[in-house]
């Protein structure tokens, strides 16, 4: 063993402190999320108690955040996520036909890169919209994200799912939240429809900011919002891997339930919890190439 230089030990020390800070921040956020949950739950329990004890007719229970957390994480949520492989299909094709690589391709090496890249490019937009879901904030975040997605395929994937989510909110969820944000979303939706033909659209309905705003309106915590958003990405990737024939449904569930996926999502949320949208960016440059070159595939089963 060689002795470490003083420089390295300083870097190591800083690294240890950084890690500790990140860990503490993550735990604080988790604790806050738990507290929020307790608040909402105890409120609901009180209401239920009142209903049980009083002879008055039962009052309607306000929509529970947990209920909407489950709906937003459901694969049956019609966002069309199954149509996108987030560069996986292109990555596989490039390795087969371009690099002529004989080594077996591991999904477990693509997955962490994809989560990391997705988090560093989209989480700042998601969380900023969650923290301020007003019309002004939402339309400005949407416009900035439109300028930040520098490839056609990625832009299509983001707006297709974002528009679907906008539709779900307007046609379905909104009825349970008649007073929430009605003006903000109405104005945003109008802007999206109006500008669809413009060369530089005023609003395109990208997925991340809309998802953040909607999670806020249905009462999820910021932590839950980020978690369900990244988990949705992982689920879409795993489902794409199954459909591309990389592995079967049991392996898929094994991957989804693994500590690795949970740990990665937590680590990404902690890393980009405070990242401002100006600092959102690509940390896996080849991912842009897989995405951008998806259109070059001779045969394809996914839209990205």
């Amino acid at each position, binding site marked *: 063993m060689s002795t470490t230089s003083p420089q390295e030990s300083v870097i190591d020390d*800083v690294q240890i402190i950084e890690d500790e800070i990140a860990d503490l921040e993550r735990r604080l956020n988790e604790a806050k999320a738990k507290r929020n949950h307790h608040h909402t739950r105890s409120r609901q329990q009180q209401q239920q108690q009142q209903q049980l004890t009083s002879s008055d007719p039962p009052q309607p229970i306000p929509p529970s955040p947990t209920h909407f957390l489950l709906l937003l994480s459901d694969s049956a949520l019609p966002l069309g996520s199954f149509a996108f492989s987030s560069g996986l299909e292109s990555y596989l094709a490039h390795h087969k036909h371009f690099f002529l690589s004989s080594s077996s391709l591991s999904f477990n090496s693509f997955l*962490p890169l994809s989560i990391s890249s997705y988090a560093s490019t989209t989480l700042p937009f998601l969380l900023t919209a969650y923290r301020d879901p007003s019309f002004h904030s939402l339309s400005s975040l949407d416009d900035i994200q439109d300028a930040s997605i520098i490839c056609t395929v990625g832009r299509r994937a983001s707006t297709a799912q974002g528009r679907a989510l906008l539709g779900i909110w307007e046609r379905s969820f909104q009825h349970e939240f008649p007073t929430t944000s009605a003006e903000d979303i109405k104005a945003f939706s109008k802007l999206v429809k109006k500008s669809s033909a413009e060369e530089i659209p005023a609003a395109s309905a990208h997925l991340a900011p809309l998802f953040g705003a909607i999670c806020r309106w249905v009462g999820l915590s910021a932590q839950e919002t980020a978690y369900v958003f990244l988990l949705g990405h992982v689920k879409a990737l795993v489902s794409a891997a199954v459909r591309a024939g990389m592995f079967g449904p049991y392996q898929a569930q094994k991957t989804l339930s693994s500590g690795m996926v949970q740990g990665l999502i937590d*680590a990404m949320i902690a890393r980009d919890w405070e990242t401002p949208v100006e600092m959102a960016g690509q940390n896996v440059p080849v991912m842009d*190439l897989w995405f*951008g*070159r998806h259109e070059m595939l*001779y045969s394809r089963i996914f839209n990205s």
Partner: protein
Amino acid sequence: MNSPFPKSSSSPGEGRIVAKLLPEGISGLEVFSYQYPLKLISPSRPSETKSVLVFLLSYGGGLVAGDNVKLEVDLLANAKLTIVTQGHTKVFNSVTPDIVTRQTMHVNIASGAAFCLLPDPVQPFAGSVYEQTQIFKLHQDASICLLDWVTQGRTARGENWSFVRWTGRNELWSIGDGSQTTRDRLLVRDAVILGSNKAHPQLPALQESMHGMGVIGTMLLRGPLMKTLGEFFLSEFAALPRLGARDFRSDAAKNAAPVERSRRERWRIERLGMEKDKTILWSAANVRGCVVVKFGSPSVEAGRLWIGSMLQEEGSIAESFGDHALMCVR
């Protein structure tokens, strides 16, 4: 900047360039100042006059940890400016990660003016910490050609994406005329964040996540002078052979007398051969009226040859800015 006296740059690393169209119809420099460690050179007897040429240099041939270079550039109406470098921009190592080496460029391009920035790539050494921010504000009919590329480091010394952190951010803004209908608008933000800090043990090391690429680059194009070049990149991208396509022709048909090929077609076949041999990956996209080209190459020299070949074949950079604009990409 209506003051007849140029603002002096008194802080270390600051520089200022104002390019304008001279009465004789060629571009010249109205303001040209810089402070150590930044160094700017403009040939006093330029061999070409299509654009005014400036070399962006630094004393000692690189940026030492903690250097903070800040360049403010103004292109007045219809001026043409070209900025190049002489060799890779080396970024030396930092003793601790909080010592950041920065390079910032703010460029304002007035109506009808055109800016060409085709430098050598940035070469971050092992242990370096670097942040680059380049903001370009384009008024109506302004044009820009920008190349931003970064290498794996000094391969001769075994470096392979061995730096601590490298971040690069490029923004193109369109500037309105102040009326209600045209407001300032972000057109494109290209941001790359590369770091050795692993947020989770399952994440691969930076070197591994680069998938064998030795250089990655981005080219941004916008404006009337870049129209044909942008279309060229888009059409060449659309013409790339499909991955996994098979040739279903019979042997007889394949061996039939070859069709007459144009010079462009012969160039394309040769270029595609190079892309395949050198595993050069690239893509081009139209993003909000700008063309964004992304490329990666295992070898820095192959990457240079590739981008140079594209620019030379299309020809409009040399035509608009002069041959000297291409000196770093051949």
